């Protein structure tokens, strides 16, 4: 299992080093083991440098940068070991237009192999979807589905 963890870590790290600069349109990032001598107990650290900036303490990143870095890592784990489906609840909320369109582009690529469910308030994210499920509460406190669109 030490070996399996090491392999998983290396595979995820390899993806992360590609996906981060894709989503950020530049910059670089990698994962590091906090204690490479102890593979059973070591933690995993993120080092990230958005384009034009220097590597700094992750807390200093902006709200949108943190969200996009998190997405990059999650997609990296995903590409290492695809899950059958993926639920994303308002993950696109903090992203500006440019980051949003690269995020949606990546989602599109991954969606060949994985079924994605996204909750979003963003019109552009809605346009990206293959299917659209509208939920409302026209009767007091009662949810129902009001519209479904399947793009053909």
């Amino acid at each position, binding site marked *: 299992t030490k070996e399996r963890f090491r392999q998983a870590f290396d595979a*995820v790290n390899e993806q992360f080093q590609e996906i981060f600069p894709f989503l950020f349109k530049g910059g670089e990032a990698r994962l590091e083991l906090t204690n490479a001598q102890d593979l059973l107990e070591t933690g995993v650290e993120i080092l990230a440098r958005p384009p034009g900036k220097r590597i700094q303490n992750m807390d200093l990143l902006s709200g949108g940068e943190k969200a996009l870095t998190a997405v990059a890592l999650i997609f990296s784990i995903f590409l290492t070991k695809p*899950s059958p489906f993926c639920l994303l609840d308002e993950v696109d909320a903090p992203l500006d237009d440019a980051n949003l369109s690269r995020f949606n582009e990546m989602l599109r690529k991954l969606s060949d192999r994985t079924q994605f469910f996204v909750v979003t308030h963003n019109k552009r994210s809605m346009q990206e979807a293959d299917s659209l499920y509208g939920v409302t509460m026209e009767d007091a406190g009662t949810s129902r589905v009001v519209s479904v669109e399947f793009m053909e």
Partner: protein
Amino acid sequence: MNIKRLEILGFKSFPDKTVFEFRPGITAVVGPNGCGKSNVFEAIRWVMGEQRVRSLRSKKMEDVIFNGSETRKPVGMAEVRLVLSNSEGLAPPSMADYDEIMITRRLFRDGESHYEINNISCRLADVTDLFLDTGVGRNSYAIIEQGQVDFVVAAKPEERRVLIEEAA
């Protein structure tokens, strides 16, 4: 193992049976604040065996049963049914011939719980076992709840390690 269909009855803000037919690709769930979108995702996590009430925004599991609105009385049971395609042979060997896996979870106000796989009664552990090691199980990297997206970045190094282990 795609989700083909989801049926929600009496779970949170869905007192009436609501059926979702899902397709491959990207499905967007949209609507105004408070209309029930996150509740749909929680229904999926609940039928897959979610037991942590706090991650269902609740204090006790009974809170997930529709507890009434201005115009409707509470109901006595929450039931969610999930139908998955058995494309990667994820079903237990006894069900290897099925094209679909149907998982049902039911909770009554008195606390009684039922679990079924393909309409056969089973235990909670049988349901969670289906998703072990798939990325949508307990330490899921493929389920991001509202407001949690930067968890991965803000997490302690030991917590982040757990996510990587899921990919091992």
